[in-house]
């Protein structure tokens, strides 16, 4: 209230000061990480708040010696497989629920619905055994297959499909447009923005997975970026600059993805939150 009555100049000055202080607090861990990653080992602990030395060797070393390059490649492969297959399965099942007529539709829909209530943490005890019995430990199949279909994606797309008036489908059918044509010409163009948000979300979720890969990966060659960082942190704790360099290498690709797909991110995050 005091701010409300204060002159305008002072009010924005107070706001900018607070914004700046908060921003500095939030960026503090990032700052210490970056300067540590750019220092040679003997300088890291000298003065942890000042960039008093500079080298790119640590980053290079994390990429090759710390194997971050390998981990990044694994994660990229996993995230791309999961995302693209998830989009296909979600479109297919959402389309079937929206435009096809078949018996037991409600039951099948109920099965999909029920899977949304089951948290990942509950299923992994048994999933690890399943993956083990399939011989898929330390493999891309093990890292991807459990996640290539989601009820969430199906529901998200179905909601959009349901906005298409049934008459339109009937009319298209009269004109001889089959399901394949209708899907390509009408349904998919309509959900394209939603697909963007869904794709981004699957990608992020898959990229950031931690618990599952740590359960089924025992060979260093199959580590994802997240479990690779864990490996790095446990084997090289005496080289904090190397660990921080690895952390930066792991974070930068996602930072780029988020900057490029900002719009999809906000759309996706708020899809469930803001209504009406």
């Amino acid at each position, binding site marked *: 209230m005091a701010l409300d009555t204060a002159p305008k100049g002072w009010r924005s000055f107070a706001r*900018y000061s607070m914004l700046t202080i908060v921003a500095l607090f939030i960026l503090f861990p990032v700052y210490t990480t970056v300067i540590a990653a750019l220092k040679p080992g003997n300088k890291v602990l000298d003065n942890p708040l000042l960039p008093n030395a500079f080298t790119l060797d640590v980053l290079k070393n994390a990429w090759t010696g710390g194997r971050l390059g390998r981990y990044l490649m694994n994660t990229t492969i996993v995230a791309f497989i999961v995302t693209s297959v998830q989009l296909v399965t979600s479109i297919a099942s959402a389309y079937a629920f929206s435009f096809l007529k078949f018996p037991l539709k409600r039951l099948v829909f109920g099965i999909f619905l029920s899977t949304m209530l089951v948290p990942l943490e509950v299923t992994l005890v048994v999933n690890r055994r399943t993956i083990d019995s399939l011989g898929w430990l330390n493999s891309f199949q093990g890292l991807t297959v459990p996640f290539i279909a989601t009820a969430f994606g199906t529901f998200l797309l179905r909601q959009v499909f349901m906005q298409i008036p049934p008459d339109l489908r009937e009319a298209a059918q009269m004109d001889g447009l089959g399901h394949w044509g209708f899907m390509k010409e009408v349904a998919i163009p309509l959900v394209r923005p939603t697909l963007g948000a869904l794709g981004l979300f699957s990608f992020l979720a898959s990229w950031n997975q931690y618990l599952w890969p740590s359960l089924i990966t025992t060979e260093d060659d199959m580590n994802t970026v997240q479990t690779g960082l864990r490996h790095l942190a446990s084997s090289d704790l005496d080289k904090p600059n190397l660990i921080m360099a690895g952390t930066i290498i792991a974070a930068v690709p*996602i930072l780029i993805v988020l900057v490029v797909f900002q719009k999809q991110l*906000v759309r996706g995050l708020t899809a469930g939150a803001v209504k009406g």
Partner: protein
Amino acid sequence: MAIKSRRLREIPLAMAMLGPSLLVLITFVLYPLGKAVWLGQQMCDVQGKNCKSVGWGQYTNVIKSDQFQHALWVTVKFAMITVPIGLALGVGLAVLADKQLRGMRFFRTIFSSTIATSVAVASLMWLFLLQPSVGVLANLGWLHNIFPVIKEPGLLNDSGTALWSVGISSIWANLGFTFILVTAGLQSVPKEMHESAYVDGAGGWMRFTNVTLPLISPTLLFTTVVLTSRAFQAYGEMDLLTNGGPIPQDSTTSVTYLIYGSSSIIKNNAGLQAAVAVLLFVILLALSALQFRGFGKRVHYGS
């Protein structure tokens, strides 16, 4: 007649389109849930093979055990630390940045930025801040002279500060997410609402509590539910920062860590792991039902 035949004619197509999803969801979501319920009353060897039923009493034993109750309490404390503080900070930041001023985009980008960190990235950044020998804070002489706990035994190794330290790392990592959600909520509040309240003489704080908060209550509910379920499923932070420790108090052994953690007491007992996992499922279900019911009445969804 035509409709009936269409119902049957489209069966093969429906099976082709739903089959793959259905197969995956059943194999990796529903079957493991059912199997975990069954496994929860079994005892297996260390490899997790040769399981024998020992009776449903195993669930009661788990519920009664000190380890489970302790882990549940740790998890509840963790949620009580991270959810209210994280939500309050997110709302505070969003309100602070909700003004058309020059340079605001820059601040919004910074406030959103932690959404780009995975749990491993965020935890390791904080490990480097908090770790007692190679950490940043421990190597600032003046700071650990004031707060000796930073160096001896270290914030992550002291049973009094470990959970708070993990919590702060987690709050930081979730702040970008909360900020983006609340900002979107604020932007959906019609400007006229504020103006008419202003004309009516409502001050800044009055406008915030009487106009803004009720209007963004659906966003706040959604954010609370997501943050709470994240807190109850937190694992990576504990695994990387504390390994569930410090020992012997196990101050950061959450329920999820108790199931999967590499230093968990039941890590080689598939039956007990499954039982705890099933109990976690029940707790999470009850919790979200409770949250929607409790808040649902007070949430303002507009007209």
